[in-house]
């Protein structure tokens, strides 16, 4: 028996089985985003890649999960704790910067540790998502995470350089992406390049 081949090179992510059951039962196409998606693509969970929660973009609300049998002791708006893991449902739709993704455009299936698969923000989109931290909040860690995803995935057969070029422009991240792309092409991203990135902003 051959094992399934995944697009890109994802690292399996831990998701509570009860949550996956609820998504299936409610026919929710929940997409894993944020720091957990970065973990999937970088394959690291420590240091700057550590994150304690799982973020899913979905049409579901926390109350819907309760209907699907998930024990919800208390609701905090978009947040719920399932099997001791904080889960957040960020405000949709699936988007990056000023660009809203077309359905199915920005997600791909990745493996969950317990054996099933879940939808996850594709790595090119994950890079742009992290660059919004750089443009909006001038966060060095956002640039480092964007670089981490790109370095880990941009040699894979599925990586679509044309797509990320086009979407970066639409999202208002064209200049930042071009800068990061240049650093990647040089093969030696530097601290000077990081400092320069923080001054670029949107556009």
């Amino acid at each position, binding site marked *: 028996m051959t094992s399934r*081949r995944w*697009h890109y090179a994802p690292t399996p992510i831990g998701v509570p089985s009860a949550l996956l059951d609820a998504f299936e039962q409610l026919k929710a196409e929940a997409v894993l985003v944020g720091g957990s998606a970065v973990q999937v693509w*970088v394959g690291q969970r420590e*240091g*700057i890649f*550590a*994150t*304690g*929660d799982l973020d899913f973009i979905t049409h579901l609300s926390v109350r819907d999960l309760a209907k699907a049998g998930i024990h919800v002791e208390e609701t*905090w*708006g*978009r*947040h719920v*704790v399932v099997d*001791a*893991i*904080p889960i*957040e449902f*960020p*405000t949709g739709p699936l*988007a*990056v*910067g*000023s660009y809203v993704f077309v359905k199915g455009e920005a997600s791909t299936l990745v493996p969950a540790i317990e054996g099933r698969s879940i939808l996850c923000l594709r790595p090119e989109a994950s890079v742009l998502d992290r660059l*919004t*931290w750089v*443009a*909006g*909040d001038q*966060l*060095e*860690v*956002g640039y*480092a995470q964007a*670089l*981490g995803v790109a*370095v*880990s995935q*941009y*040699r*894979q*057969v*599925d*990586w*679509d*350089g*044309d797509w990320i070029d086009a979407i970066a422009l639409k999202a*208002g991240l064209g200049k930042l992406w071009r800068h990061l792309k240049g650093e*990647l*092409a*040089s*093969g*030696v*991203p*530097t*601290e000077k390049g*990081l400092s320069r990135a923080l001054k670029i902003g*949107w*556009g």
Partner: protein
Amino acid sequence: MRSVGYITDEEGRPIFALVPVAQFTPATRRRLKPVAPITNAESGALDRLLVNPAMCLETAFLVNPIRAAREAAGITQSDLAFALRISQPMLSRQEQPLRRVRPGTVTRALEAIRRIQENRSRPTISLEGVLSGYGNRLAESAARKSRDPIERRLLREAGDPVALKEREDSVRQGGERRRPPKRNGT
């Protein structure tokens, strides 16, 4: 794409390339010089072609543009099929000699081949090396990350090491996504 056919030997190896006469202009012919004397294998194949052209031409085949480009790029059929999100048997059918393939199919395949080649030529970068070059800046910036206060509280209760170090005054109410300011500056 220029049409090219081959005459093969008994073992299927291409011995002669055939191009349409219209594409083999006198100027092209003048530019081309033999790189080596004709070999016995070539001479034998040419003899057979002269004696029995029908038999020999049966072994000639038009090069399938997808297969030719894929093989020239050193990409396996399995990898290309995967990148195109089609099954390997389907790609195999598309790559059959003399098969009429839609121009759009060829374009998509050639585009995927270009992309794979481009991706494989990208430099391998040591992430650890880059991150260590950034020094303490990363840890300091992680503490500046803005969050919804409820999210921060839940993460701290769950023992999230990053949230534990974050500053209380970095707040992003409601978890709104970061987006560029509107053109009127609002």
